[in-house]
């Protein structure tokens, strides 16, 4: 087998980077992670990042044998297509794939932005954001139904896309004074199921780290 070089331009707290690493782990693909300095405390974004993603200048970027790929959900699909032999992440039928893509699109457009509103605000604005997040999670509970995973019996692409956001929930809960488990128990149960997988728990950061990050951001924004 030819030597594969797989590098991820990374940020350990980013749920978008973490979904890529979970996908690679699911496929048993070894990779090198290069942590990017996104906030400029150690010189800023690398030349490699700026060259590899000139349009958005964002992480994650996957470099596969030197060729750059951008946009995390597109990278995850690429990983699924390029290493198809082990555990497919996308379902096999076109209709089930369409459903998976629908939920990926929904999750990507809603979860992180609304979650960010919770910690970037106080008072009424924060309350509104909390309500919105709970509604979104309830919608996802409906989509999950009685299945163990969004992919059915097996961990699939929607699970890969969604699970990294949950490491931010502890911070949202502390800042917003609520508990996801109380409002959306089915969602919490799914979260716990995913975290039992090595490929997930070995990648996701400790929620305390994210809480500390959010606390310092809130101080900078004058919210604490």
């Amino acid at each position, binding site marked *: 087998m030819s030597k594969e070089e797989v590098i991820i331009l990374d940020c350990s707290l980013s749920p978008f980077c973490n979904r890529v690493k979970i996908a690679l782990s699911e496929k048993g693909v070894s990779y090198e992670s290069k942590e990017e300095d996104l906030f400029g405390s150690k010189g800023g974004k690398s030349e490699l990042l700026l060259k590899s993603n000139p349009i958005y200048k964002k992480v994650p970027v996957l470099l596969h044998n030197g060729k750059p790929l951008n*946009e995390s959900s597109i990278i995850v699909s690429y990983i699924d297509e390029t290493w198809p032999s082990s555990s497919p992440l996308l379902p096999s039928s076109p209709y089930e794939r*369409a459903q998976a893509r629908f939920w990926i699109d929904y999750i990507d457009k809603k979860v992180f932005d609304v979650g960010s509103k919770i910690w970037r605000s106080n008072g009424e604005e924060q309350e509104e954001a909390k309500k919105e997040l709970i509604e979104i999670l309830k919608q996802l509970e409906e989509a999950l139904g009685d299945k163990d995973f969004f992919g059915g019996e097996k961990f699939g692409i929607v699970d890969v896309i969604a699970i990294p956001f949950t490491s931010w929930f502890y911070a949202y809960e502390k800042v917003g004074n609520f508990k996801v488990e109380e409002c959306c128990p089915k969602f919490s149960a799914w979260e716990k199921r995913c975290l039992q997988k090595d490929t997930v728990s070995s990648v996701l950061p400790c929620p305390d780290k994210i809480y500390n990050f959010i606390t310092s951001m809130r101080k900078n924004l004058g919210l604490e």
Partner: protein
Amino acid sequence: MEELKLHGTWPSPFSYRVIWALALKGIPYEYIEEDLSNKSSLLLQYNPVHKKIPVLVHAGNPICESIIILEYIEETWPQNPLLPSDPYERATARFWIKFIDDKGTVVFKIFRAKNEEEREEAKKQSLEMLRTVEQWGFGGGERKFFGGDEIGMADLAFGAIAYWLGMIEKVTGVKLLDVGEFPQVYGWIERFREAPVIRDNLPDWNLMVETFRRRREQLLESPKT
């Protein structure tokens, strides 16, 4: 073949993406015009989350969101492929499709703008989007379309923006597509409009301009900010 129905509205650019894909692959279907001011119970049943068109219904199974519909069509009817077969090239095509969907729809904000400030902001973002496509979309003039010599899914995605942009310019008087500043995009629009199948499946220009002119008058009259 199983029953295939497209629920859309005329002249929605998102409906037209699906119309183009079905026409390019030669797939017969029944078109159902939806009234968005009075959404049918069928539409609400098929798309309960977003309640929007287009919806493709194949053998009773509804598929929503125009790009997701295009991917479904591509996988179900592989003739005249709209995506490359190489995974890296597919990822590149999907990058453009996502860029167009995330950033391209800002042109409709020019149409919906109720004041100078909103219009200027939408114009600024639209120009940024066009400059990115101009600089990166066609390999500096090497490619006729996003993927090469043939129309693909990224072109269908962009067609919904670019062709309607011409109408938005006419109805609002805001001029964006200067051939001097955007020679690649300009050239692409000409090639897309003249391409076989596409040219037979474009909304009637005058009717479309009239429809949007009336819609804009209604928008500007309505009391909501």
